[in-house]
């Protein structure tokens, strides 16, 4: 059966959320709320209430990045300082922990920040080829609901969106 990529624009956030609430209670069989992608101009506070709890994993990368930073920092500095073994240190420790803590702290943050950024780019699906349907109005003041749907459910979905005052419904047949 043919599958369609639908892109529906709403000017009223409440109407869009109303349509999604209907999808959530399975008013259209075969379409789950998990299939829905929402595009909005702001980080909308009700998105999670409507779409459900979708996990974010950036912080795990941050943790391991920071952990790597502090570990690498210690071993890097210690390895460099150990090369002074042959030189007199005037009674000072070869690997001085107090001063190394300062640099380990900086490396913790450095690697934590950069790992977070790369994880964000990867996990948010940035720098990736996107679907062809897009409206610039999403970056102004409208909200878009994107769903891939079977042909048999297409009309029911359109009817639902029209009931919720959709401004525009675009569709494209998926290969």
């Amino acid at each position, binding site marked *: 059966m043919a599958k369609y990529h639908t892109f529906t624009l709403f000017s009223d956030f409440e109407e869009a959320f109303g349509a999604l609430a209907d999808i959530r209670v399975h008013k259209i069989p075969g379409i789950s709320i998990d299939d829905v992608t929402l595009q909005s101009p702001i980080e909308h506070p009700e998105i999670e209430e409507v779409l459900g709890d*979708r996990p974010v994993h950036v912080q795990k990368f941050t943790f391991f990045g920071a952990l790597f930073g502090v570990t690498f920092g210690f071993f890097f500095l210690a390895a460099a*300082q150990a090369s002074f073994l042959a030189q007199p240190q005037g009674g000072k420790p070869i690997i001085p922990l107090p001063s190394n803590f300062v640099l380990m702290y900086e490396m913790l943050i450095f690697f934590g*920040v950069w790992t977070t950024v790369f994880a964000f780019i990867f996990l948010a699906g940035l720098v990736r080829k996107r679907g062809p349907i897009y409206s610039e109005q999403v970056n102004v003041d409208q909200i878009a609901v994107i769903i891939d749907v079977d042909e048999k459910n297409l009309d029911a979905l359109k009817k639902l969106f029209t009931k919720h005052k959709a401004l525009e419904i675009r569709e494209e047949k998926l290969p």
Partner: protein
Amino acid sequence: MHVNEKDINEQIRWAQINADVLRSMENPRPAYWVAVAVCIAMVSCAVLAEIYQYNTGLGVTNLNNPHMWDMYIATFVFWIGMSHSGTLLSAILHIIHADWRKPIYRFAEAMTTFSLMTAGFFPMIHLGRIWNLYWVLPYVSDRGVWPNFRSPLAWDAFAISTYLSASAVFLFIGMIPDLAICRDNAKGWRKTLYTTLSLGWRGDDRQWRNFRKTYMLLACFLIPLAVSVHSIVSADFAMSIMPGWHVTTFPPYFVAGALYSGCAAIITLFVILRYFFRFEEYMTTAIMEKTCKLTFAIAMVWTYLNLIEFASTWYGHNIYDKEVLIYKATGPYAWIFWTMIFCGSVAPFALAIQKWRRHMPTMFVVSLLLNLGMYFERWMIVAPTLSMAYEPHQFYMMYGSIVQWAIVFGSFGWFGLLFLIFVKIFPSVSMYEVKEMVFHRRRHLDHETAVKFGRRARDAGTPATDTH
């Protein structure tokens, strides 16, 4: 406080926000171009002075034993300090959900990045042999020698490069949704630039979820990072045994001073941007008032730490420290010391007067006075100690030569030029965050909600809706 004074007009339409900010990038007032020309002239002075210094040697700066640092390093500390408020305050206010930061945080973060880029020049210029700069990098030389990781100067290199990269990333990540708006409205080279930088942002729920978490994590990293950077800069002095520098309170004193000068710079740039780009709708007097109150509070913290430093020196009875303190207040640099006290501790009381806080030209002048005081503070940290160290044969006072002055003067032009180019190419007001601010405040003022929770009932007369 004026009754019903709002941080922003909640009824402003979202399309209008986009239009206003995008227009600012195309069509500033003519004064913008005058400012660009002035900055270019200032940078030219510095370039000429640097060429002269490079060809002639560091002697032309008047730097000599015992004054081996002086103005360059004072200016370095000043620019590092200037960088603090932007990112640090933006991160703190983001974490505590103070939404009045939203129209002004973008330019404050840009200020951080460009201040750091300006600060980075001074150790290079001061080196004289600039081609040896790479010696601070943590690599092993051909004789098997590493940089001395015990030295605060090596810590500086680590801390400042980490802070610069993290601040630039924080600025960039926060700008991605706005770059997508620019992409959708731009043509020509701007379209290419914004398409590349927006990284394919479309505002998906997945993108927003990850964005929110990432931005919060970066904010959490940046707060301790910013504090550590200026603490480490203070360690350049405090780790020595020189009188007047070997002070336990130096790290918090430096951090407070940095926040103070950064806040004053935010006020200066606030007034300038508001005028250049006609941002009266976004950079409102209510937000200016909040910024001024914050600056006043920080000014009082700085004043307190100053007094603590003087008192601990006075009652500590270390003769060398005490001599330096007396020398500061009564010696040849006394006029700088007392100007610092006036600009840093007395002038901020202008921020406590509501009528003046609401008058932009007055605040512009006051903010410049505050930063003059903070520049003098850095001079008073560096020069008197070098003039009055332990050995009497080293007692010697000096002022920077015209070459030093030209380079310092040019650094302001360099900072200004970078900043002016930035605000012309990138949105200096965060469009999506202002929309969020408007959205939340409109909800807050929604008639039913206001009645239900009894909050700001005087504003609830006009029911607001979620139409954008």
